[in-house]
């Protein structure tokens, strides 16, 4: 899986590409860890090319959101495919994470 992070001031665009599963989750966690320390980060996660997320991916999204909110920032996920959105819906994560 590829993770690209583009920054403009407080705004961060996280572009995900590929499958987020047990194999790729550790690398993803490593990539997003610096974002968890940023104050007032406004993060948009672009999921247009995210093919799948496992439970491990959900845990990491939630962890990222908790840190970002704690630091006074915001997190929005957008452009999800139907398959990825389905994972958020049937686990109730659509209720927790902002999806546009």
């Amino acid at each position, binding site marked *: 899986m590829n993770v690209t992070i583009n920054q403009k001031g407080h705004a961060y665009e996280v572009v995900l590409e590929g499958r987020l599963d047990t194999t790729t989750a550790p690398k993803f966690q490593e990539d997003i860890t610096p974002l968890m320390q940023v104050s007032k980060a406004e993060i948009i996660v672009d999921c247009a090319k995210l093919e799948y997320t*496992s*439970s491990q991916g*959900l*845990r990491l999204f*939630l962890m990222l959101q908790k840190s970002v909110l704690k630091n006074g920032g915001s997190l929005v996920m957008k452009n*999800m495919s*139907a398959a990825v*959105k*389905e*994972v958020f*819906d*049937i*686990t*109730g*994560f*659509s*209720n*927790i994470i*902002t*999806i*546009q």
Partner: protein
Amino acid sequence: MEHSNTHGLDLHCQLILEEYRDMQPVFATMKEVVLTELQKCLSRFNILVTAVEARIKSEDSLVGKLQLKGHKYRTLGDLTDIMGARIITFYSDEVDKIAALMEDLFEIDRENSVDKRKMHELNSFGYMSLHYICRIPRKLYHDPAHPEINEYRFELQMRTALQHVWANINHDTGYKSGVEVPVEHLRNLTRLAGMLELADDEFSRIRRQITDYRRRVQTLVSSGNFDEVGLNGDTFRSYLAIHPFERLTNRIAAINQAEVMQDAPLGYLKVLQGLGFKTLGDVEKLKHDYSEAAYQLALHQLGGTDLDIISSSLALQDLCIAYLIQNGYGEKDLAQFFEAIQGPGPYNQARAQRIIQLAAELQWPTQQQNHG
């Protein structure tokens, strides 16, 4: 330190002014100690106030006072307001509560402390605060090099936000006592003071009523008398605190041995009210009547996956979905439900379509109703 007498003060007052100048570091320390101790005390007792402030009387103000009534003071120590602190509360009943704490914190000079709240005459205007004259006790702070810190007195005012507004406006009129106020203005000022005092009392009364109401709701919820409890923000929050959907959540979690992430689904209140639910009893009925369908829905959706994490709000989400479909609500209504819970977006319509298809596969009964 020598200063020239530029204020027309007599020698006696000039000496008081000299002492005031020399003691500036002492008063600065007193100010810091008092502010710190006040904040620590309020924080320890979880009392929220609008402001805690302190100031040292300006030289101009002191000179003015000495020019007017300097003969009344033998030394600087006779002036009790060189350092002044103020606590501004939200509610009038908190003034008494804070006063009791201050009596423990500082040494109170009772003879010179005034409860101006009790000084009103029938024909007076006034709406004032509680003033304590205090000293910093040695147990609180002591510096052997500056014993004056425990000797000089300071004034501590405790008042509500409205009393503070009144005091400031009153000060702005330039009148310090009712006697000086022209008769034509006295009535209006008295009316205004009465209105503010009434507002202060009402705020306290309303807060007590809300607190009582919340206690009653918690009792009713804990005792399971749900039909007697109206559905609103307070009651729904109390209801969620007893984890009403835990059993269903655990049942759903057991499908994949999932971890449950706790989430308070307060956003569902609006939806439940929109569906016409009036009491917590109605929500209990939803849980009673639709838990099996909600479980079947979750089983169908999660059963074929390896997803082993769910949100605790999933149970209520699936209960609502089951209720909507089995009561004849259509695809459009379902999409509106998702929009109400998760916000507008391109996904809601497609998700509603999938759920309707799934309901057909599950052969859920539907009532032929038009909720248009």
